[in-house]
């Protein structure tokens, strides 16, 4: 991970401290700025303050937040209007910048946000090979399993999905690669910058960047004839209609969902419908016992451990 790319997202004062401080960016998960509060660095094993030269925790000011927001948006907050309504922006490298502040409503609709008081930079990590253990369960020579990766937030779902896509696309061992279509609604998987993926998703992967999942899945099926369609964080009603379209088109689906375990996810109304149809052949559950990305279990379509 390029340290300067991350440091340049922040206001001058913070950037200087980040440069001076020794930080292992490969283990860093979040950088959290709150107005009038210390700046937190969150690692996989805990959190710490960013400290000044005098070892005092650096306290974030409103100006820092404003300046950071300018840099994060490339002086163009208007270009992130739609994303800001959802509370986050995706930046070069696939990192996600979450913001909170005062929400401006237009009737029932969120129009925007002002008085931004907290910025949380979640760093995207690429761990090539992290899917090695699950690949034999997902892909055989002439078969790919419809797969759902389940975990609570910050347990490595997206990182695992990214590596699964890469391995499906490139092929692994004696298994040949297949065409993979990725709908990257939040630019997290590929981390596209000006249309070019910054993360390695494999040589046979087509990425539809910043496209709503439901529409993107249909577009990919129609236009790119992928063997596998991959999406991150299924959850909206329209996503499930698109999932049906994928299944019936003969493509295989690899997706992720928030949840503690298979039962909890399948108990939600939408996934219950998919369960009834026995859509998924594999459920992979991740946890965070010692570190993010621990595989708690791999289950077949009936929920029986493989």
């Amino acid at each position, binding site marked *: 991970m390029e340290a300067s790319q991350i440091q*340049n997202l922040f206001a001058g004062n913070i950037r200087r401290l980040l440069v001076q401080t020794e930080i292992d960016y490969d283990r860093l998960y979040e950088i959290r700025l709150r107005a009038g509060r210390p700046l937190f660095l969150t690692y996989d094993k805990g959190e710490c303050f960013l400290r000044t030269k005098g070892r005092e925790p650096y306290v974030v000011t409103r100006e820092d937040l404003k300046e950071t927001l300018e840099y994060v948006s*490339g*002086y163009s*907050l*208007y*270009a992130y209007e739609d994303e800001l309504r959802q509370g986050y922006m995706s930046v070069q490298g696939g990192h996600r910048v979450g913001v909170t502040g005062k929400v401006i409503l237009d009737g029932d609709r969120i129009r925007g946000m002002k008085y931004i008081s907290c910025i949380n930079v979640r760093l995207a990590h690429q761990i090539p090979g992290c899917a090695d253990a699950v690949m034999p369960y997902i892909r055989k020579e002439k078969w790919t399993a419809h797969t759902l990766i389940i975990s609570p937030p910050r347990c490595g779902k997206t990182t695992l999905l990214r590596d699964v896509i890469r391995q499906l696309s490139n092929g692994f061992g004696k298994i040949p690669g297949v065409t993979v279509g990725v709908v990257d609604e939040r630019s997290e998987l590929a981390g596209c910058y000006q249309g070019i993926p910054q993360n390695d998703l494999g040589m046979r992967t087509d990425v539809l960047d910043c496209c709503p999942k439901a529409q993107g899945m249909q577009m990919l099926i129609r236009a790119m004839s992928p063997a596998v369609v991959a999406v991150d964080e299924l959850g909206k009603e329209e996503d499930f209609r698109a999932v049906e379209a994928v299944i019936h088109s003969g493509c295989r689906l690899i997706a992720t969902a928030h949840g503690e375990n298979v039962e909890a996810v399948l108990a939600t109304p939408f996934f219950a419908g998919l369960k009834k149809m026995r859509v998924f052949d594999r459920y992979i559950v991740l946890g965070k016992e010692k570190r993010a990305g621990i595989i708690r279990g791999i289950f077949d379509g009936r929920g029986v451990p493989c």
Partner: protein
Amino acid sequence: MLKFAGILMIFIAGTGMGTAKSMELTKRERNLKKFLWLTSCLKGTVRCGNSCFPEAFLEISEKFDGMYQEFLQSLADRLKGQEGQTLGQIFRDCAKKEFRTAGFSAEEMELIASLGDRLGYLDREMQLRQLDIFEEELCRRLDFLACQLPEKKKLCRNLGILGGIFLGVLLW
């Protein structure tokens, strides 16, 4: 004979100076028109591509050459570099540096340099509206210049010729 040659040289120099000044006015009009085109391109990129400014400036730079391309590229580079300055400051610096030889009047230069101060604030609609207002102002200046240009050019040329003749007569 030498005296005659000197007077002829002075006459030619005077005429040349007048013509150069007149060509400068044409260049000024041409450069203002080019900046108007740049504004239209920027508007299109913001409206259709929803690109952020560094990206938009870089995209547009491919359509231009010379000082405009240099201006757009240096602007994009500096915005990407995130040096701790505002968009307005960076825009002003780049405009003043790259358009030194564009022949703009002080007022026109100020108008162009101030474009950065108007951008980057609030939503897309606001950016487009600001660019519309800027375009209108630029068009007004172009119209004004177009009205005055033939007369001014003629005046410059004639003054050059007459100045040359006057100095020639003085030296005779």
